[in-house]
């Protein structure tokens, strides 16, 4: 388990305190251990992502960092303030986009934002400017007088992101910002997030269970069953997996599997109709494969390790399997949700 160290060896490198600092954070709900001792740090201006299947403890972690849930044990500091003892200080510095919609649907987009601005004490003279900025940014300026009830899911999401930014937070928490959206809207939202990083120098903590989205992060932590099982840059994590993946499609799979075993001493697996093997250097292996395999093959594809492979390596299953295994737990979620917000 990676463990955060307060001071760097040279004593200078860590002068700037991290934006988020978490040490051995835990949360139990009765018998359920939602978060089992996570530790990590997020530097100022960094985009850090939690990648994990349903029920991994992502939202619970965010909830604790945002002072909405009290940790069972452990320490967490956001922007230098303790999330238990200095709640107001923390809240003043964070923006938050929850996993599910938290807009007042009977108010207009603008009214929702004004409510937020007033609640956060954004000075009167900059509210109008700021409102315009964030609404333009998410492309909702023209719809500002529309009732939120009449918005599509993607529009609501964008409005929430705009709201989370309205008061210029130092740290922005995004809990699955793109869940349930179509690919185009997802792409748009990522575009906004990229802009944010550039323009507002805001630290972003986000969660996702989309592998491709995790690639946008500077660093990711893979969380499963309430524990961080791996952490690092997407590239570094993939490098750690090391092996490339080669997928072969053939008329006679068994024959190919047999040949691979006999000639190369490999142990192929059949995943979704493709014979899959892992080798250190895929591009160099393919010519050898053609020369020595000796059985007909329809197609070959070589891929560098993906985060799917990373997830597989660290948890022993694919993220889809992981999600399927928590589906019973999730049957009770609407009820949980009601409980959780107490």
């Amino acid at each position, binding site marked *: 388990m*990676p463990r*955060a*160290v307060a001071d760097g060896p040279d004593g200078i*490198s860590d002068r700037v305190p991290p934006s988020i600092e978490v040490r051995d954070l835990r949360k139990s709900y009765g018998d359920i251990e939602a978060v089992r001792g996570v530790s990590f740090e997020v*530097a100022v*201006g*960094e985009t850090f992502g939690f990648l994990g299947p349903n029920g991994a403890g992502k939202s619970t972690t965010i909830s604790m960092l945002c*002072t*909405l*849930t*009290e940790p069972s044990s452990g320490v967490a500091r956001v922007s230098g303030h303790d999330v238990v003892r200095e709640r*107001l200080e923390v*809240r003043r510095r964070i923006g*938050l986009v*929850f996993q599910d*919609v*938290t*807009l*007042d*649907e*009977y*108010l207009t987009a603008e*009214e929702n934002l004004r*409510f*937020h601005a*007033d*609640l*956060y*004490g954004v*000075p009167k003279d900059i509210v109008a400017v700021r409102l315009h*900025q964030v609404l*333009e940014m998410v*492309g909702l*300026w023209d719809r500002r007088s529309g009732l939120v009830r009449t918005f599509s899911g993607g529009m609501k999401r964008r409005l929430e992101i705009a*709201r989370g930014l*309205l008061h*210029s937070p*130092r740290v922005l928490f995004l809990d699955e910002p793109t869940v349930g959206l179509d*690919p*185009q809207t997802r*792409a*748009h939202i*990522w*575009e906004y997030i*990229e*802009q944010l990083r550039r*323009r*507002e120098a*805001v630290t972003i903590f986000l969660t996702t269970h989309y592998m*491709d*989205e995790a*690639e*946008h992060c500077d*660093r990711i932590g893979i969380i499963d069953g309430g524990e961080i099982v*791996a952490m690092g*840059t997407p590239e*570094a994590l993939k490098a750690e997996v090391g092996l490339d993946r080669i997928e072969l499609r053939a008329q006679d799979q068994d024959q190919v599997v047999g040949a691979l075993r006999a000639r190369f001493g490999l142990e192929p697996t059949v995943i979704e109709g493709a014979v899959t093997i892992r080798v250190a250097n895929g591009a160099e292996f393919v010519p050898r494969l053609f020369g020595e395999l000796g059985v007909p093959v329809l197609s070959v594809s070589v891929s560098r390790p993906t985060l799917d492979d990373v997830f597989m390596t660290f948890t022993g299953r694919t993220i889809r399997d992981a999600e399927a295994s928590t589906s019973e737990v999730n049957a009770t979620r609407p009820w949980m949700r*009601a409980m959780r*917000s*107490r």
Partner: protein
Amino acid sequence: MTRRLKRNQRVDPVTIDNERRVGPGAGGSPPALQAAQALPRSGAPVSPGPSSGAFDAGGVLEVAAVRIAGGELRDDARAALVVWRRELIRFFRNRLRIVTSLAQPVLFLFVLGTGLASMVSKQGSVHGVALGAGIDFRTFMFPGVVGMTILFTAIFSAVSIVWDREFGFLREMLVAPVRRGAIIVGKCIGGATVATLQGLLMLALAGLVHVPYSPLLLLTLVGEMALAAFMLTAFGLMLAARITQVESFQVVMQFFVLPMFFLSGALFPLSNLPQWLAFLTKVDPLSYAVDPMRRAVLAHMAISAQTRRFLGGGMTWNGWRLPVGLELGLVAILGAVVLVIASRRFAKPD
């Protein structure tokens, strides 16, 4: 901007470079991002437009919008005010609700009231006391029905916080950098205002049941209505703090609101009741809010002292007639106490 990423990671730290992703050297740029770049950047302030001026200054927006000092009374007052304003916006936007909430008290007053009035006048007396002497039964009922309007509107407004929770908006409020008590106070005053407004609509019908539109009477009633509305909304919030599901609203109605309504003397005089019932009416906080309103109305009617005593003399403790000031004081204190309890309950995180 340079950023260091010198944390203990499982793998080697890599310096973060924003351009890494978007530059041609990015190699495995994820497909979603490529899609993002191919998309037209509609409405985004990438192109210099009139709106993007403040963004510049080195490409970074000044991150100073939120006043860092605070947590003071001023912030709390402001928060309460916004929450209050939201309640009003929602009230005025939902005209249908305004009309439908009027239907029930109107039915009580004009259908039940008229029906009972005919029975009362045929017999000429209730409990042997003449009632014909210049007073319509509906006049008697009027303050009770106004109280009922306040009761239902106030409880409904307070319990709307359960919907806020269900639809997530409560979390938006609770995560704000203000004390949670301020949110609850705002919600309470908002609900009380809405209930008073709804009560005003009922009050407008006073003339139909022979209650005079005397400015002094109306002013007194409005003040008493507002106080009742405050106490009842606070009470509703206290209950709502314990409710986690919208379905539980039924429970609140059956076990709190309806008994409160029936026991308050809104529909019948509290004099000459059997002891068990008299006791229950005195436990009901709503009684202490309805009684002052009834006394104000009766004071403006030309009726005999005996009738007045029978119709409006019910709130006694051990034979002692409570003064109006004390009743109103009790309502105010109860409201404040209950509001503090409600705030405490909402202030607790998970």
